[in-house]
């Protein structure tokens, strides 16, 4: 899961991780434009870090990237201007949701249910979102999530339980 090799170039690093960082930011901020902006900021930091690194130094880029991204998103959420200007999360629209590329199991989830999941996810607290995304979407273990976020494993499990219970309740209302 962790990448302990230093990429040969910044471009390779960008190609390998940009999508993941962008998705993480999008999930944490619930806004595609903000997510793109934060992802750019993160890769600017990557570039600066890359320039300052010793060529022989090994770097665990992926956890570092996740940590920087989560912190950048948190800073953005705390920004007073962001709170003032953002009227809320982007709205889920069910009408145009494509389902052509889905497996039969995925089709079981109706469009309406998917919309409800998104809306329920957006109502989670920032920390619950971070923990849920890192564990369930990105596949990090609870110990790794705890290390990245600087909290205990027990806290991670607690946040996971609350987030999962809330999201599952939405599915239970089908």
């Amino acid at each position, binding site marked *: 899961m962790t990448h302990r090799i230093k990429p040969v170039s910044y471009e390779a690093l960008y190609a390998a991780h940009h999508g993941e960082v962008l*998705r993480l930011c*999008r*999930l944490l901020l*619930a*806004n*595609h*434009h*903000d997510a793109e902006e934060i992802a750019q900021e993160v890769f600017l930091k990557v570039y600066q870090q890359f320039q300052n690194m010793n060529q022989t130094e090994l770097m665990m880029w992926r956890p570092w990237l996740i940590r920087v991204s989560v912190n950048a998103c948190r800073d953005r959420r705390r920004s007073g201007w962001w709170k*003032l*200007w*953002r*009227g*809320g999360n*982007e*709205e*889920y*629209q069910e*009408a*145009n*949701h*494509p389902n052509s590329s889905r497996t039969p199991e*995925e089709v079981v*989830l109706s469009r309406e249910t*998917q919309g409800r*999941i*998104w809306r329920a*996810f957006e109502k989670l607290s920032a920390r619950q979102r971070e923990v849920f*995304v890192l564990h*369930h*979407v990105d596949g990090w273990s*609870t110990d790794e999530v705890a290390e990245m976020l600087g909290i205990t494993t027990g806290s991670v*499990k607690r946040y*996971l*339980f609350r987030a*999962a*219970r809330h*999201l*599952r309740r939405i*599915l239970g209302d089908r």
Partner: protein
Amino acid sequence: MSGCLRDRTLFLLYYGGGISSQRTHLTKCEACAARYRQLEHDLEAISQVLREKPHRATIAHRSHPFTIRWLPIGAALALALVLVWVSVRMWNPSTQPSLRGTNNGEAWNLMDEFPSNFFLLNEAIIGEPGAGSARSYNLAAAILEADRPCEWYDLPAMGVTESSIEDLGISETIPFVTCMEVNPAIRTVKPKV
């Protein structure tokens, strides 16, 4: 089945917690095992929805990256306007409109001319039924004299002209209050006869 695991315990087991007896129960109890499988399925479905690449259609993008909250912005603009207006007035007092030049000014002029003791006068005329009309008239005159120059007091009061005062039989012995007595500011004016 009694002793079935609670939802919280199922979550705990899912996230790698729990104790061995709970795990054993999970393997033996069909109902709990079904609930656990449902939990796994639900969480996987939720993760799958969140894992998908963002579709333009999944999340509605507005034309503007920010959704403006109009209420705080409107309030801020109104506050700014008030502040500008107040500061302009404070720094340029000559722009303060003259009350005398406006309709309000006319109203103020009227208020100036209105006798300050109008209600006192009213009470003097109406409020003493026992006293004679001449006494009331005299008192009213005194009150009016306190606020007006003597020249004003040639006007008829309550429909009774000065000439008819004599007809009412007012005695000369009743002490009329003159301008000089009630209004010291015009003592230099020669009193009327």
